C-alpha cells in the first residue's frame, strides 16, 4: 500500500502509567514531604500499568473504523494519544491530515454563557477557526433546533437542548480525520437517530473516522472496519464488522464474566456484603456465558450480613448491549409473605431470570442493594459488581423465528383462536 492512501499510521504505540503504592491517593505537597521524612530509606513501591502495549495498525483514507473493547481495554488511551491529549511512552503515529476529536459532547460549554456564545467558544475549543464557525452558524443552529433560545444562557436549557446544541457544533467540525468517543449514547432516541445520520454522512463523504462505541448496532451500521482491543493490545482487526461484533457480543474473548467473586479481604457494607454472583442452571451448575433462551437461568447471590435491617432491599438490573435498562427486580417485589428472609451471617439468595423473555443479545446484570429511603449500598450505574451473559438462539419454538427479533424483549406468549373455539362450541351444540 502506498502511503498516499494512508490517513493514520500507528507504529508500536505503548502507554505506561505508574501506580504508586504508598497509601497516599492524591498526595499533597506536605504529604509527600512528610512521607519522605518518615520513611527516608523506603523505596516507593510503584507498579507500571500498561494501558496500551505495542499497538500497530494503519488506517486508510476514507475508512470508518470502529474501535471496541471492554472498559479498561485501552480504547480511550488510544484515542487520547491520537488526539494528542496524552503522549505515548513509546512508538510513533503519523497523521496525514487535520484531526478533529470529539471525546465528549460539549467540552468547554459554560453554563453562564448563551447558546450563541457557547457555539463560538466550543467551536474554537474543537479547533475551528472563527470564520469557519460563522459560516456554519446557521447550519449548527438549525441542526440543534434551538434558534429561539440562542440568547439564553445554556444553564436554562433542558438537558436535551444542551446535548443537541453541543453535538451540533461538533457535527459541523470538518476535519480530514474525525475521532469520536461514545458520544452517541446521549440524548433521546430521535436525536440519536439524527446523530447517526450525520455520522453516516461524514463517513460517506470520504473522511476517515475512528469511532469508539459499546453500541454494536451503531458500529455495524457505520463502520467498514473493526478493531477490537483487549488488555491494551489489538485482539482482532477485521473488515468483517458483523462477525467480529457478534463475537464480541457473545463473549468469545476468553474472559469469563458470567460469575463474580469478591476479592479476598475486601469488605463491603455491614448490611449487605456481596461475596459472589453466580449464573447457574436449576441444579446449581454454572452456566456458560452464552445460553439459549429456553434454558432455565438462575441468578445466585451470596452475601454476608452483620447488621440486620428490615428495610434492606436487594435486587438486580438487566441492561442490554445498547445501554438500555430492560428491567429491575427486587427481592421484596412479591409481597411480605413471599419475601425471602435475610439472616445474620452468610445468605444465599436465588432468583429465576425469566427464560423466553429477553431478546437475543448481550446483557449485563448489575446487583443493586439499598436501605430503603436511606442510602444505596450498591447503586445502579455506579460500576458495582456485575456479570455479563448473552442469549443466543432458542427464541421460540416456531420455525420462522429463531434469531434476534425487533424489540427490546422477545417474550413467548400464548395465542388462541376464538373462531376455532366458537366453531367447536357450535359443533357441540348441533350434536345435542
Amino acid at each position, binding site marked *: 500500500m502506498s502511503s498516499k492512501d494512508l490517513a493514520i499510521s500507528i507504529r508500536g504505540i505503548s502507554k505506561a502509567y505508574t501506580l504508586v503504592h504508598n497509601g497516599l491517593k492524591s498526595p499533597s505537597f506536605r504529604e509527600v514531604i512528610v512521607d519522605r521524612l518518615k520513611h527516608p530509606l523506603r523505596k516507593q513501591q510503584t507498579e507500571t500499568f500498561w494501558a496500551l502495549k505495542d499497538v500497530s495498525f494503519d488506517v486508510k483514507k476514507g475508512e470508518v473504523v470502529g474501535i471496541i473493547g471492554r472498559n479498561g481495554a485501552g480504547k480511550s488511551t488510544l484515542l487520547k494519544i491520537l*488526539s494528542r491529549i496524552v*503522549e505515548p511512552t513509546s512508538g510513533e503515529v503519523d*497523521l496525514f491530515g*487535520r484531526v478533529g476529536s470529539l471525546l465528549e459532547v460539549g*467540552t468547554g460549554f459554560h453554563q453562564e454563557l448563551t447558546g450563541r456564545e457557547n457555539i463560538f467558544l466550543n467551536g474554537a*475549543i474543537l479547533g475551528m477557526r472563527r470564520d469557519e464557525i460563522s459560516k456554519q452558524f446557521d447550519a449548527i443552529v438549525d441542526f440543534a433546533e434551538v434558534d429561539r433560545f440562542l440568547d439564553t444562557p445554556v444553564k436554562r436549557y433542558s438537558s436535551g437542548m444542551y446535548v443537541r446544541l453541543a453535538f451540533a457544533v461538533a457535527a459541523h467540525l470538518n476535519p480530514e480525520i474525525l475521532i469520536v468517543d461514545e458520544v452517541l449514547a446521549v440524548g433521546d432516541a430521535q436525536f440519536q437517530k439524527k446523530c447517526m445520520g450525520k455520522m453516516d454522512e461524514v463517513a460517506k463523504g470520504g473522511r476517515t473516522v475512528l469511532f469508539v462505541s459499546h453500541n454494536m448496532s451503531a458500529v455495524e451500521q457505520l463502520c467498514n472496519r473493526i478493531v477490537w482491543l483487549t488488555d491494551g493490545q489489538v485482539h482482532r482487526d477485521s473488515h468483517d464488522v458483523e462477525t467480529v461484533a457478534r463475537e464480541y457480543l457473545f463473549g468469545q474473548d476468553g474472559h469469563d464474566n458470567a460469575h463474580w467473586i469478591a476479592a479476598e479481604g475486601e469488605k463491603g457494607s455491614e448490611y449487605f456484603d456481596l461475596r459472589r454472583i453466580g449464573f447457574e442452571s436449576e441444579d446449581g451448575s454454572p452456566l456458560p456465558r452464552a445460553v439459549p433462551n429456553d434454558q432455565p437461568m438462575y441468578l445466585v447471590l451470596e452475601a454476608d450480613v452483620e447488621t440486620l435491617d428490615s428495610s434492606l432491599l436487594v435486587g438486580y438490573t438487566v441492561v442490554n448491549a445498547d445501554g438500555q435498562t430492560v428491567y429491575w427486580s427486587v427481592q421484596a417485589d412479591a409481597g411480605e409473605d413471599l419475601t425471602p428472609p435475610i439472616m445474620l451471617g452468610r445468605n444465599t439468595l436465588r432468583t429465576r431470570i425469566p427464560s423466553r423473555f429477553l431478546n437475543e443479545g448481550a446483557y449485563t446484570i448489575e446487583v443493586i442493594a439499598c436501605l430503603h429511603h436511606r442510602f444505596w449500598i450498591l447503586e445502579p450505574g455506579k460500576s458495582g459488581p456485575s456479570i455479563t451473559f448473552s442469549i443466543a438462539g432458542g427464541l421460540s419454538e416456531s420455525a420462522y423465528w429463531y434469531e434476534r427479533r425487533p424489540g427490546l424483549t422477545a417474550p413467548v406468549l400464548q395465542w388462541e383462536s376464538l373462531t376455532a373455539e366458537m366453531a367447536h362450541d357450535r359443533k357441540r351444540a348441533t350434536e345435542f
Partner: protein
Amino acid sequence: MQIVTERAAEMQEPLLTIKPPGLWSPFALREVWSYRDLLWALAVRDVKLRYRQTALGVVWVVLQPLLAAGIMSFVFGVIANLPSDGLPYFLLSYIGMLGWQAFSGTLTKASQCIVGNSHLVSKVYFPRLILPLSTVLSTLLDFVVGFALLLGLMGIYGIRPQASLLLLPVLLVLLITLAAGLGLWVSALMVTYRDLQYVIPYFTQLLFYASPVALTLSAVPEKLQIFFLLNPLTGLLEAFRWAIVGRGTISGIAIAYSVGVTVLSFILGAFVFKRMERTFADVI
C-alpha cells in the same frame, strides 16, 4: 527519473508525527499562532463571565481600582501619614495599584489557569500555552480601562503627563512578563500539588507589602530599603510611577536587577511549563 518522481509522490509527508516526549522540545510558537482564535475565545469568555449576573456589571472594572486606591491612601497616607513626593496620596496609590494589579492579576489568573480548565486539558488538544496567554488579555483590558481613568484623575488634579509616559508600555510588558514567568511555573506545579492554590494568595499579599505600591521607596526606613530592593517588583513599580508623573527616585542598578530577574523568571517558568506540559492530562 520516472522512478524518482513516483517515489516522491508515494512518500507523502505526514502532516504530523506523534512521538514519545524527548528531553527538550521547542516552543511551537507557530502552532500557538494558529490557535489564536481559541486564545481570543477564551479571553472573551473570561471577560464576559467576570461580570455576568452582577448588578453593576462593567462598572466594577472602574470601581475596583478606585476603591482599592481609596483604602490604601487612607491607611498609608492618612493614618500612617507617609511622604508622597509631593503627589496627592490618592493618585500615588492609584498609580501603584494600577501597576500592581497588572502584576498580581496576571500571576493569580495564570497560576490557576491549568487546574481551572482541567476539563479542557483532559479532553481536547491545543497548545497549553494558550491558557496562560489568554489570561493576559483580560489583564490588559483591565489595564486599559484603569489607565483611561488615570488620565481623567490626572486632569482633575491638574498634573500633566510626562514624555516619559512613552516608557510605560515597556514597563507594563516587564511587569506582566515577571508575573507570567512565575505564573507559568506555579500553574504547572499546581497540576500535581494543589496546595499551591492556597499558598499563592498569601504569597501575593506578602509581596504587596514588600513592594512600593501605596508608598514610595523613600518612605521606607533606610535600613529596610535593601529588602525592598531585593524584590524585583520594586524597581519596576518605582519606574512605573516615575514614567507617569515624572516624580520619585529611580536607580539604574535597581532597574537592571529587575529586568534581569524578570527575564530569568520567564525563561525558567517557560522551561518548567514546557517540561511538565505533556503530563498535564495524565495527572490532572
